[in-house]
């Protein structure tokens, strides 16, 4: 069960779309850095996978709000997610 980490804005990069196209049953998605812009506008409706997490520090940095379908976590929980999943795949391009 893979943990996918997406760090680019879904408006400027296809990283999130590519990641979702490679999502398997049991995988989890974590949005970090500019990846959290996927919380804005109607983007969350387009994320057809779950569970979806986002880093709270990155959300607060950007002045975004977290929809109910997505769980905001701190760095400690990020480490936990990496323990619970394997492999870890980063999508940064």
């Amino acid at each position, binding site marked *: 069960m893979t943990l996918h*980490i997406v*760090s*680019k804005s879904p408006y400027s990069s296809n990283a999130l779309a590519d990641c979702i196209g490679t999502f398997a049953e049991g995988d989890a998605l974590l949005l*970090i*850095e*500019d990846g959290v812009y996927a919380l804005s506008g109607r983007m969350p409706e387009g994320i057809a996978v779950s569970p979806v997490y986002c880093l709270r*520090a990155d959300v607060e940095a950007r002045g975004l709000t977290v929809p109910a379908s997505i769980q905001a976590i701190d*760095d*400690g929980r*990020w*480490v936990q997610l*990496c*323990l619970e999943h*394997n*492999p*870890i795949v*980063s999508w*940064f*391009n």
Partner: protein
Amino acid sequence: MKFSLAVYSAPHSSQSAASALRFAQALLAQGHQLYRVFFYCDGVHNGSSIAAPPQDEFDLVGQWQALQRQHQLDLVICIAAAQRRGVLSEREAERLEKPAANLADGFELAGLGQLADAVANSDRLVTFGG
């Protein structure tokens, strides 16, 4: 558990090197082991001794060094990627006949094999790129 990190981004230009540092701090705070941080591609600039961010900005090089001292971390910079980008030890500067060296204390230059070795010896590898 044993982690290793692969860092491909320079400080400042992208957020991801700072994310890598925060992740490293968080896993160490939980008592996990950080086997190695391997700096590749533009990540080699994390080991520059002459980067001088303004006083009120984050000093990522200094933060890596502090963490290294505290936990005896293995901070390895890919020697081939570093040569191309101008991050050199005294020894490399002399060998390549370049006028200066800028490798920061606490970082080591080594070959790409150290990335494969980190993969083989860690339970988890997390890549910070872009």
